[in-house]
């Protein structure tokens, strides 16, 4: 009994040490960005950096405050996030579905290899004129761009995850005479889940990048439009505020996905790194 208690005590202490270690990283990690900001502000104030080319951090902060107060920032961010959500769901569903098929059945892979190999290298930006031609300048083409963008990394990671199921598990399943569906649901998919999640995380990052690209060409709303129109109106402070917001939201999305991944994949030690 006493042994069990001391083991638990050790575990608790090592967890505390882990958290404290992580927290102690923060001051060091913050030094670099703060120094950069101070340096930048000084250079701007002394005129070494032209405000029209690179606004001072204080100017960008002012722009931020104005954008938040007028609601422009949140309105446009929400519109962009909504577009991303739509396109991402389409891309993810297709990516996982096609990925599972290709991963499981060699014949499917061979059948699609040329078409997919041909389409994959086409950069998203090159798709935009085509999609605008087919679907017009409304939401359709923007959602399609995002779907295509998020499709590829998800597809690749799903295939890779399914292929890399450990043979030992499959042998065990064979010995226990499990049928194909059980093997798929109980062994293959759970084993592939870490890879699938990696694909989903990369996919959402690309989806977020795509929405800005999609909104640069023919739009009247969204964060990409905010950036484009502020550039055309010679308001670089608003432009940079928009660009930074993209980074912030991207970071938020990725962190959220990481937390979800940790919860779902508790059994996988790799996911905790």
């Amino acid at each position, binding site marked *: 009994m006493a042994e069990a208690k001391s083991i638990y005590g050790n575990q608790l202490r090592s967890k505390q040490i882990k958290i404290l270690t992580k927290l102690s990283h923060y001051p*060091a990690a913050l*030094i*670099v960005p703060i*120094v*950069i900001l101070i*340096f930048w502000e000084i250079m701007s104030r*002394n*005129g*070494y*950096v*032209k*405000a*029209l*080319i*690179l606004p001072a951090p204080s100017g960008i902060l002012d722009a931020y405050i104005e954008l938040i107060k007028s609601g422009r920032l949140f309105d446009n961010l929400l519109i962009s996030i909504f577009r991303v959500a739509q396109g991402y769901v389409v891309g993810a569903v297709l990516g996982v579905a096609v990925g599972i098929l290709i991963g499981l059945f060699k014949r499917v892979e061979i059948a699609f290899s040329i078409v997919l190999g041909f389409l994959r290298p086409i950069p998203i930006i090159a798709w935009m004129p085509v999609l*605008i*031609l087919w679907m*017009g*300048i*409304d939401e359709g083409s923007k959602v399609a761009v995002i779907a295509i963008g998020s499709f590829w990394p998800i597809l690749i990671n799903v295939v890779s995850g399914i292929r890399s199921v450990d043979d030992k598990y499959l042998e065990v399943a064979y010995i226990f005479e499990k049928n194909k569906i059980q093997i798929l649901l109980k062994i293959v998919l759970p084993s592939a889940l870490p890879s699938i999640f990696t694909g989903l995380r990369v996919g959402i990052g690309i989806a977020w990048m795509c929405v800005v690209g999609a909104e640069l*060409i*023919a*739009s*009247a709303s969204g964060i990409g*439009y905010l950036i*484009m*129109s502020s*550039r*055309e*109106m*010679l*308001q670089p402070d608003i432009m940079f505020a928009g660009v930074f917001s993209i980074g912030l939201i991207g970071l938020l999305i990725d962190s959220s996905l990481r937390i979800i991944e940790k919860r779902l994949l508790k059994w996988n030690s790799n996911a905790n790194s």
Partner: protein
Amino acid sequence: MKRIISLVLVTILGIVLFSGCGTNEIVAKDSKVSRQTKETSNSAAKPEVIRIGSIIGTISTIAKEQGFFEEEFNKDGIKVEYQSFTSGPPITEAFISNKLDIATYGDQPAIVAAANGAGVKAVGSFTGGYDKLALVAQIDSDIKSPKDLKGKKVGITVGTVVQHMLYLYLDSAGLKPEDVSIVNLQPNDLITALAAKNIDAAVTVEPFTTVILAKKAGKQISDSTGLKYMAGPIVASNDFITKYPEIINRLLKAYDKAKKWEEQNKDKASEILAKELNIPKEVVLAGIISKDTDNVKITEDVSKAFEQTYQFLRSSNFIKKDYDIKSFYDVQFLKAAGLQ
């Protein structure tokens, strides 16, 4: 601790070095570093090259084809370089990154540039009039006036003269920007979008209006009569003006020569622009050449137009601080060249 300090120092060093690399993008305070010329002390200094910017389908193309700039400057060993654009804001960016000395474009982006400290000034006028801006609609549309724009999708190029024009159209019909669906498109994309019926209407400026009509991508509903005199300034960088004022005089003379030539040789001028825009020359003649002004003066119409544009920009808060619009233009060079 030592490691952190050295990491920080390396980062700072990296940033300093990196910012030195892209010297085109970060310019020193007094533009002490001039990439235009090596001679700065001589009062009769000449540049090695003059970099001229313009919107396609305007007098600048004609002047270039007929060699008016080369005629004026080659004898002094000065080269001339041209850059063409389809809209104003990129021209402002070129001025800011010191890639242009003089350019012809719309007054809205030029005034925004000057008011925001981009260091440019209008020294002349390359075009103007009530027939340069237009409201166009789909070829078979039933839009007959700005009133019919309510609830429709209207394309404009944000940051250019057509933006102000849309607001004026809406105002004249008692509408507000929220009553229409505004889509931001580059001029060439406006043409495609209109032809593909992705937008119901668009506000355009020459030469794009004529291109739309020539390609039957749409039909013209109205121009800007009674609403806005479109002013197109000849804009030069303050740097260049300070260093080479007599060159500015000579440039204005070259532009003026081109204008007079265009007036006398309408047919050939139409051919030149027809080739650049890839449309029939008869359309160019009717839509662009015969409507063009024949001088480069900053007339009262022009200066009033600058004023009107500035008021719009200031009241819509596109320009955030008060700016003296009279400091945007300077007629001394026109006067010195005997053109005004």
